[in-house]
């Protein structure tokens, strides 16, 4: 096991009462790169990050960050954090928040650099209370990076940002990554993972459902997405050979298959009248639905 890892966990488990939030997580994260942690609501993404920060004590298993126990003060000096639902106090301006944070770190960015990097200009002297949701999120991001961390945890950093602000944040994340910062981020925007991540980890119900370099993640499921207009119902579509998941909106069916030929043959046999057939390479979203099972149609677009 390489002792140069930034993050190392073995059989990490966390329960909340009867609920198993983390169920045997084995992870090894080397320095550098952007690691995207994906998973549906309640999959355990936040719990994993909190465990690596020492905010949550695991029930069993081991976690090491910079080869120390999570939450060690030397780790905190090298770690930047943006939590999913932690807010800053209302009664300080952005600049005052930055001044306080700057005291915590050995090597903090000066405010001008920080404001430029995180695009805080325009609201830097306003009280946190009166900022818009996206401006608050950007301020929180700024506090995460002010200490020039080696390791950056971002729990859903772009939730609530407009498309332009999201792209701006992606740019900063890439810049920091190029400087060697290891970045662990969670997101529900698969496009974000596609654009940013060097490595993608999919959590499902507290377990790692997939963990692969971003360019290989499609191969972990492989196969293809078949789309067609059909008279079959969802149950019979799901029952076709090698189908990972199937969903139907109106008459338009979409299914992910591991074996295109086998599935297609059975499909054509059962519904010789089907039309509008296309076969394509799966998108990250298709894969994600396959990995996290229980695939429900996310947006049930009416086939009008």
């Amino acid at each position, binding site marked *: 096991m390489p002792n140069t890892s930034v993050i190392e966990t073995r059989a990490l488990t966390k329960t909340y009462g009867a609920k198993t939030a983390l169920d045997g997580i084995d992870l090894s994260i080397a320095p550098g790169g952007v690691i995207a942690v994906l998973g549906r609501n309640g999959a355990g993404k936040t719990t994993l990050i909190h465990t690596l920060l020492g905010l949550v004590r695991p029930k069993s298993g081991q976690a090491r960050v910079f080869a120390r126990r999570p939450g060690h003060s030397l780790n905190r*000096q090298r*770690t930047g954090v943006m939590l999913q639902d*932690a807010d*800053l106090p209302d009664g*300080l301006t952005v600049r005052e928040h930055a001044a306080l944070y700057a005291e*915590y770190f050995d090597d903090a960015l000066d405010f001008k650099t920080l404001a430029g990097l995180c695009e805080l200009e325009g609201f830097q002297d306003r009280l946190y209370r009166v900022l818009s949701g996206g401006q608050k999120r950007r301020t929180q991001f700024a506090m995460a990076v002010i200490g020039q961390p080696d390791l950056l945890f971002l729990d859903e950093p772009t939730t609530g940002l407009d498309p332009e602000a999201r792209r701006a944040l992606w740019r900063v994340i890439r810049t920091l990554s190029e400087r060697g910062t290891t970045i662990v981020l969670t997101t529900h925007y698969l496009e974000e993972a596609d654009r940013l991540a060097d490595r993608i980890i999919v959590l499902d119900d507290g377990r790692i459902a997939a963990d692969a370099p971003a360019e290989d993640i499609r191969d972990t499921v492989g196969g293809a997405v078949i789309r067609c207009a059909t008279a079959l119902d969802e149950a019979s579509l799901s029952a076709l050979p090698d189908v990972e998941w199937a969903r139907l909106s109106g008459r338009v069916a979409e299914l992910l298959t591991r074996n295109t030929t086998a599935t297609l043959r059975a499909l054509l046999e059962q519904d010789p009248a089907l039309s509008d057939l296309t076969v394509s390479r799966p998108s990250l979203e298709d894969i994600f639905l396959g990995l996290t099972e229980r695939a429900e149609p996310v947006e049930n677009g009416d086939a009008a």
Partner: protein
Amino acid sequence: MSRTLRVLAAETGAQILINLRQMEFIIPTLVMPAGFYTLFAVVLPGSSDNAAYLLASFGIFAVLGPAVFGFGVSVANERERGWLQLKRVVPAPAGSYVGAKLMATLLVAAIALAEIYAIAGFFAGVELDQPVWFALLAVHLVSAIPFVFIGLIIGFFMPSNGAVALSNIVFLGLSALGGLWIPIIVFPPLMQTFASYLPSYHLAEIALAVSGAPGERDITGNLANIAIMSAVLGLGAVIAWANQRS
């Protein structure tokens, strides 16, 4: 300056700014004590005899507000909004959060006390020897201890809207029923008995003794009571703190 002191100073400064930008904090801490003292000791007829007596107990009142609101309301709010969690992941020295709150509380309390002392000395005709002024100041500031524990218990146990309500009840209850506004001698016997269970009452008695107010008192009893109450409240605060961390 060492890193710890620098962080503590910055954190204290931030805390004071946060406090002073909130009307809900300023009113019960910097306005009410001086206002009530002016009313009871200067404006109301025949009050100048009481001015020295009231100075002792209103000093306790002036410290009660910053402690209960500065800890109870703000800790509950900051805990609920995740600020406490963020504090635990930054490399701030252990205890700087509570330490800064304590400094901020004492500073606001000192301002509130200065207001009352000035009104007493300049307008209410209270005359005390210099050592007595300082002894009184010491008693008033030290009285923050049990009140801060109460604030911490509220802050760590209560959801933030409940904390606001409870802090107000505690603030007004400890003041009125503990005899900080009106001496408990005028209370019915049952209420006098009740007052003896309140830290505010015992602290006021100690302050009265120090300021040389006439009347028979059991100072040893007051000191013993306040020591026990502080210890119990301190234990409660530690339990509340441990409880919210897990």
